[in-house]
């Protein structure tokens, strides 16, 4: 891992307008991403974890510039790409690729899989004809598919094999960063293990940086180096994975960890701190700390003051009013 980040995101905001009334005027906004800052180095996996609707996929799409940010800055390999229009973005697209949860939906059912995987090679003018076929055959081998399978169509592959096709396609243009949005969520555990192992091997071989999106904490802990926990459009805690799992500081992280199930019957009933209630709507996030409606430790101040994300200990960022810089990392008291 070298230290210069290949991807930097600063103060990223993405609001989706809500239209209503007879005239379909804008009556509000979904604050899908509400001021997010992080960076990823070469060869590193940053995990984005959080519950449904907290803004993970939106961050992925904005970073890929599939949608435009409302505010903030995106720096890719040292170059500010925030304001680039699609045409100018084109040359940068090679550097950042994506793997989806369901690769099938993005594959043309009428094209052979080899053509699908080789598409970016053609589009970016990297290789054509026989040279392209050679490269595609190599990619197939690298992700554990037989090159003869290049003639088959997407529907003839299993879920895990399709995910391998998606990985081969993303890999084809030699990117710096891969945004992987729930890449193993739809797979059975035995196949999930194959794909996770492959992603780790490829990362080590090519120095790829992954922005890895998942709601599964165990998968996250397995693949990530650092993890950002999100709640309602914001990062509430960001640190290396060991610290996150052994010394979580944000009450929401603590709640997530204690809600997770483990394949160990001896651990049952050890879950003490299950948070009650539902996640509020991102169209109407609570004032102050977004988590205060469910937080066991909330004080009056939490209902009015927005906690900033602070580096409370070296490399450990937390957004909680009760976790000041250099503060006691011990358990919080219930007020």
């Amino acid at each position: 891992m070298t230290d210069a980040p290949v991807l930097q995101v600063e103060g990223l905001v993405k609001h989706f307008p809500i239209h209503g009334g007879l005239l379909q005027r804008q009556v509000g906004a979904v604050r899908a991403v509400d001021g997010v800052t992080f960076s990823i180095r070469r060869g590193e996996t940053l995990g984005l974890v959080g519950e449904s609707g907290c803004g993970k996929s939106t961050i992925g799409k904005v970073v890929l510039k599939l949608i435009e940010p409302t505010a903030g800055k995106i720096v890719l390999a040292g170059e500010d790409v925030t304001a680039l229009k699609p045409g100018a973005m084109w040359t940068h697209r090679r550097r950042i690729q994506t793997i989806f949860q369901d690769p099938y939906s993005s594959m043309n059912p009428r094209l052979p899989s080899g053509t699908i995987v080789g598409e970016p090679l053609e589009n970016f003018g990297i290789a054509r004809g026989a040279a392209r076929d050679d490269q595609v055959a190599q990619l197939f081998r690298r992700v554990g598919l037989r090159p003869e399978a290049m003639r088959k169509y997407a529907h003839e592959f299993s879920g895990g094999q399709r995910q391998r096709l998606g990985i081969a396609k993303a890999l084809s243009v030699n990117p710096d960063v891969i945004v992987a949005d729930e890449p193993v969520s739809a797979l059975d555990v035995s196949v999930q293990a194959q794909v996770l192992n492959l992603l780790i091997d490829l990362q080590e071989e090519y120095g790829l940086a992954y922005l890895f999106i998942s709601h599964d904490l165990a998968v996250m802990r397995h693949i990530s180096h650092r993890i950002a926990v999100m709640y309602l459009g914001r990062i509430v805690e960001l640190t290396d994975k060991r610290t996150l799992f052994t010394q979580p500081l944000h009450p929401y992280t603590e709640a997530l960890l204690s809600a997770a199930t483990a394949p160990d019957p001896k651990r049952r009933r050890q879950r003490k701190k299950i948070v009650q209630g539902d996640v509020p709507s991102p169209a109407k996030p609570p004032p102050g700390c977004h988590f205060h409606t469910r937080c066991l430790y909330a004080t009056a101040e939490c209902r009015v003051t927005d906690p900033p994300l602070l580096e409370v200990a070296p490399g450990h960022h937390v957004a909680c009013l009760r976790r000041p810089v250099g503060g006691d990392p011990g358990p919080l008291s219930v007020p």
Partner: protein
Amino acid sequence: MNGNPGPILEVRDLHTQFSTLDGVVRAVDGVSFDVARGETLGIVGESGCGKSVTAMSILRLIPPETGRISSGSIKFEGEELTTLSEEEMKRLRGHRISMIFQEPMTSLNPVLTVGTQIAENVVRHLGVSWKAGRERAFEMLDLVRIADARRRLDEYPHQLSGGMRQRVMIAMALSCDPQVLIADEPTTALDVTIQAQILDLMIELKEKTGTAIVLITHDLGVVAETTERVVVMYAGRKVEQAPVEALFEEPLHPYTRGLMGAIPRLDVEADAAGTRPRLQEIPGLVPILTQPIIGCAFAPRCGFATDRCRSERPPLVDAGAGHLVACWEVDRVRRAA
């Protein structure tokens, strides 16, 4: 009750098949198990192994156009279900045997309020007045800890969050005091914090009401935390069955062992930051259920397989203390621990 009343549900050598363009799908291929009164039995296995079809067979909800229970027996309170008429089944379903599914919207009626739906179920099965049905609906919503239950009675399913809809489904399923509740992936679509709430609620209500639960899931963590006994399925067959502690302490079937090695774990001590141990892979793919399976269904993927495995189907044998396993090589597997 005194004496030994026996299991509430007995499934014997169940075969359920579908006719498709590709041939006959042997979705459930000779499965047997009992459900004891008041117990929580887990059925676990990967996608397509026949968990839902087993549940649908018990409830007699297999679509008759393509599918049928081709042989076997299902007894509820000693009464054979496979030969009951649809009318008789209707009287059982939602009353003495009830169910909840992964996606509550598929079983809730979008145009009726949740209060009306629960009340209808109660009125139909228990023959009480509409007013008493409404009151029961209120009690049930309150029981599943829906805040402000009185007001929620008059809301429609789409006005509720996913977690609340699943609570409504549980309220409805328990509204007539069933003896068995079949829950097919009840928390799979939910966020972890909501999943934890729902699982806790199901266990708490089970202890309160004595309803036996058949919990179907692909998630070994959910099984470990909520069930007492577990059936592991592979390719339409039961390959292992054990009390939950024994299963996780010493899984005996190579497939179960493979599954446990394949999942990333949260509960083992974290490695030094940065290292990522390889996950155990199960090579290959699940068999295609339209083709006849000779011998052990897991043989093509199994590191222990011998010629016998490829030609003779392994019988379920008791490896001690109610731990059943269908594997010819269980002694070798054990030693390889």
